[in-house]
């Protein structure tokens, strides 16, 4: 079990202990405060260079990471590889060596292949590697901001603070993850985080969208979706990963929506305290009805807002304890 990400890479949430996850969340609370100031900047990473290496495009996530780095006063090298001339077949080792030659302290990386960030971390052991999503494998900062958002909202509800509550609010919390679990790196990261913090996790999906060997995962498979919705305190919806071939696993989007979509009907029957989450971008009308996305119990905009402080926390912790101090 990894007890802290200080000075380490963040490649996966699997194997992170409750302590390690809470550390990220607690430090993020301070960065929420920083983001509320007039001057949303602290010099913590001044002089450090963070490269953002996105082989798979995602404007939102990339901007979120780059904003986080800049608010820590780091210099950002932004490399949108997806639009460059880099084609399939360029070795990861060559790509990262070229960037490393420019002198970087950390790289935030998104790639369409599972494990790409892990492979890169082997090629540049002196550079901190932060996985911003690798194929179907993991999306650690999404998992972290999701649990952070839940803690934030539940703490408010109970009149306490996230910091004070630690992991208490997750104890026995009913979390239901719905949708394309098979192809979702967000699901893998979310499940690791929720389970580490003490929540009870169920998954609901058509049989073909559950991974093989779901029995070996620390979750229960819900037999009845509507019953599971009633059981849930938190409903985490997943995007149908059409670009990863979800299409051939379900007969049609319409059938998916009928059987596992959060329609307005289903949303009305949820308990009033149930929270609705989605990592974005949403396929409005598929996994979530457009009107449901705009309900007050839907925390989607809050999730997006929490992306920056969580990423600031991750950058700060992973880059602390590495590199040299800048002296006076």
């Amino acid at each position, binding site marked *: 079990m990894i007890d802290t990400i*200080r000075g380490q890479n963040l490649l996966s949430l699997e194997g992170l202990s409750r302590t390690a996850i809470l*550390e990220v969340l*607690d*430090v993020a*609370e*301070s960065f929420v*405060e*920083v983001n509320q*100031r*007039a*001057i949303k*900047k*602290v*010099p*913590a*990473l001044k002089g450090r260079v963070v490269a953002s290496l996105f082989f798979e495009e995602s404007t939102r996530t990339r901007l979120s990471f780059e904003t986080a780095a800049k608010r*820590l006063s780091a210099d950002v090298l932004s490399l949108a590889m997806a639009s460059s001339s880099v084609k399939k077949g360029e070795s990861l080792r060559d790509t990262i060596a070229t960037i490393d030659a420019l002198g970087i302290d950390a790289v935030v990386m998104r790639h369409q292949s599972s494990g790409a960030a892990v492979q890169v971390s082997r090629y540049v052991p002196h550079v901190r590697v932060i996985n911003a999503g690798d194929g179907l494998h993991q999306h650690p900062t999404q998992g972290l901001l999701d649990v952070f958002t839940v803690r934030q909202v539940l703490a408010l509800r109970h009149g306490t603070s996230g*910091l004070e509550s630690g992991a208490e609010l997750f104890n026995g919390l009913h979390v239901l993850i719905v949708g394309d679990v098979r192809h979702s790196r967000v699901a893998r990261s979310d499940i690791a985080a929720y389970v580490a913090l003490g929540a009870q996790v169920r998954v609901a999906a058509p049989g073909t969208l559950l991974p093989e060997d779901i029995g070996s995962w620390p979750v229960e498979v819900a037999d009845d979706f509507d019953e599971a919705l009633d059981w849930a305190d938190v409903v985490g919806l997943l995007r149908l990963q059409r670009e990863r071939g979800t299409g051939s696993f379900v007969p049609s989007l319409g059938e998916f929506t009928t059987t596992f979509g959060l329609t307005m009907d289903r949303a009305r029957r949820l308990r009033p305290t149930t929270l609705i989450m989605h990592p974005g971008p949403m396929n409005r009308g598929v996994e979530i009805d457009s009107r449901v996305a705009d309900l007050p119990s839907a925390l989607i905009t809050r999730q997006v807002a929490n992306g920056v402080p969580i990423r600031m926390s991750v950058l*700060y*912790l992973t*880059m*602390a*304890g*590495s*590199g*040299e*101090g*800048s*002296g*006076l």
Partner: protein
Amino acid sequence: MSTSDERQARPRGLTFLAKSQLLSQDDVARALRRMAHEIVERNHSLEGLSVIGLQKGGEPFARALTALLADIASDQTPLGLLDVSFYRDDLSLNPVPHSAMTSIDHDLTGRTVVLVDDVLFTGRTIRAALNALSDWGRPRSVQLAVMVDRGHRELPIRPDYVGKNLPTSLDEAIVATMEGVWIGTREPS
């Protein structure tokens, strides 16, 4: 010592082993009262004064001083708390402290800021605090109040109000709380 004090006293991987208690709880209370009077005297009044306690060790002292100032001058001095972890220049060398929040709810421009900390040592924390303060405006002046000055300054920083001067050697450690001041060592836990 309370749990939060313990956490503050114990950087990751090291535990404080007290050798002897140098100041009692009463000594601390007396010193704070004296410092509060000194603050009023030096500034002629409390107008335009802001007390900022440095997280985490300075917080209890800042709260105490603010209460004492209210007693003396019947005026409520605004209190803020400042966490300087993000302003330190030795990120890689210092263990990242457990989370502590910053809360400063007013513009510090034109104010006389009294920074309050528990122990003054190399001066780097205060330098980080001076950096941080500039994000909340441009104070008219900044004064420094510390419970203990243990020497070994690495920067040209000097306190304006000191509870107790305690020369120490580098391998010793000082812990100062509202309950007292102890000298000892830090051992790997």
